[in-house]
C-alpha cells in the first residue's frame, strides 16, 4: 500500500483536528479499509485511528435506546448488547469472523456503507441516529446509496443510537465466498409499526421495503408478506445471484426474520 501517517488521538477533539488535514481519513478497525489499501485503491495521507479514544467505545441501553460508541467492535456489541437488544447483538455476532469482529467497528462499517454490509440494515431497520462530532443524523437520512452517506468530509461517527424495538430479528443469506449478505433482512416491530431494512440486494445499498412494512404493521406474521413481490429492477446481479434471485431472497429473508422475531 501507499505510505501514510498513522495518528492515534485519545480524544474526539484531537481526532477531529487530525481529520481536518489533507487526505485524512478515520481508521476504525480497518477490516475493509486495509484490504482496500493493499490493492492501492485508497491512498489516504493520514489515517486517524479511533482505537485509542475511550469515549467512543462501549455499549449502553437506557430509555429504549441502545447507544454504541463509534469505535466499539462488533465483538463487543455481540457480547454487551445480548440482553438489551438481542437481534442487534446477533447481527453483530454474525459479521465476518471472530477475528474480524475483534477489530471491526460499528462506526467504520456505517461510514463505509458497503451495499452488502450488515450494520446498515441494523440501523435502518431499528431506526435511530448516527451521532457525529457535529450533529445527529437520522438513520433514514444517513444512507445515500452504495458507499455513500450523509457524512461530510472530516466528520466522525462518535456513537450510534439504535431504537430498541418490541421484537426484531436479522436474517442473513450469505454470499458463498465473502460471507457478506447476498441478501439480508432486518425486521423490527415497534408500537409505531414495523420497519424492514434490506441489505445486499439493491444497487442503491440498504433500503426499507415499505410494502412489507405496511403489510407487517397490520399483521406481524410471515404470511403477511406472501402476496407481495419485489421488483428485480435495480437489484444487484453478479456471479453469485441474478437480480431476480436477490429479489426473491428479499422476500424469503424478510419472512424468516419475521418468524425469528416471533
Amino acid at each position, binding site marked *: 500500500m*501507499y505510505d501514510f501517517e*498513522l495518528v*492515534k488521538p485519545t480524544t474526539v477533539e484531537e481526532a477531529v483536528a487530525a481529520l481536518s488535514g489533507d487526505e485524512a481519513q478515520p481508521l476504525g478497525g*480497518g477490516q475493509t479499509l486495509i484490504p482496500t*489499501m493493499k*490493492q492501492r485503491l485508497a491512498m489516504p495521507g493520514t489515517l486517524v*485511528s479511533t*482505537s485509542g479514544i475511550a469515549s467512543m467505545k462501549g455499549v449502553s441501553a437506557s430509555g429504549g435506546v441502545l447507544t454504541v460508541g463509534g469505535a466499539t467492535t462488533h465483538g463487543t456489541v455481540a457480547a454487551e448488547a445480548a440482553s438489551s437488544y438481542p437481534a442487534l447483538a446477533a447481527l453483530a455476532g454474525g459479521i*465476518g469472523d*471472530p477475528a474480524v469482529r475483534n477489530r471491526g467497528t460499528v462506526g467504520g462499517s456505517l461510514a463505509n456503507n458497503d451495499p452488502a454490509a450488515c450494520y446498515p440494515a441494523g440501523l435502518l431497520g431499528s431506526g435511530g441516529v448516527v451521532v457525529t462530532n457535529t450533529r445527529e443524523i437520522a438513520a433514514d437520512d444517513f444512507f445515500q446509496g452504495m458507499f455513500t452517506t450523509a457524512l461530510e468530509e472530516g466528520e466522525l461517527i462518535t456513537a450510534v443510537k439504535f431504537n430498541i424495538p418490541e421484537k426484531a430479528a436479522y436474517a442473513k443469506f450469505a454470499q458463498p465466498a465473502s460471507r457478506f449478505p447476498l441478501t439480508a433482512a432486518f425486521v423490527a416491530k415497534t408500537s409505531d409499526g414495523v420497519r424492514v431494512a434490506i441489505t445486499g440486494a439493491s444497487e442503491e445499498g440498504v433500503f426499507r421495503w415499505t410494502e412489507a412494512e405496511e403489510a407487517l404493521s397490520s399483521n406481524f406474521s410471515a404470511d403477511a408478506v406472501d402476496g407481495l413481490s419485489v421488483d428485480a429492477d435495480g437489484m444487484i446481479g453478479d456471479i453469485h445471484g441474478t437480480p431476480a434471485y436477490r429479489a426473491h431472497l428479499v422476500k424469503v429473508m424478510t419472512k424468516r426474520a419475521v418468524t425469528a422475531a416471533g
Partner: protein
Amino acid sequence: MPTVSMTVNGKPTTAEAEGRTLLVEFLRGPLGLTGTHVGCDTSQCGACVVHVNGEAVKACTMFAAEAEGADVQTIEGMANADGSLGVIQQAFQDHHGLQCGFCTPGMVMSAAALLKENPKPTETEIRDYLEGNICRCTGYHNIVKAIMAASGQDVTAIAAE
C-alpha cells in the same frame, strides 16, 4: 522511521515500523517470528491470526502501530514452558489436524481463542467459529476433531464417522 514497542510472547520488543507496516510484517520481519503466515490479502484466510491483548485478530489486517504497548501472542508462544506441545498443539498432532502446516498457526490461535470463550464447544460451534480460517488440505474433519479433543471431549464418535 518511527518505532513500535509491544510485548510479544512475554518478551518486550521494539522495532522500526512505517505507518503502513502491518502487524504480520512486523512479526515476520524485524522480529523474525515467521510462524505467522500470510495466505491472502482480503482478510479471509486466517493464516495470520495472532492474539492481541488476549483477542484473536488478523495480523495482516492491523497496523503494527495499532498494537503499540499491546500484549501479543503468536504460535511461537503456544508451547509449554518446557518446550513440549501445548494441549491444542498436541491434539492437532494426535488427530492429524494439519497437513501442509501453512494454515496451522492461525488455526491453533483461533482454536485457543475459541476454547477460552467456550471451553466445551459443540462440533457446530467449532465449525462456525472457524469461519475465518481456511484450510485447503484437511477438509476440516480432523481439525474439528482435534479441537474437540483439546477441549477434553470424547471424539471416538467422530473417529467412527
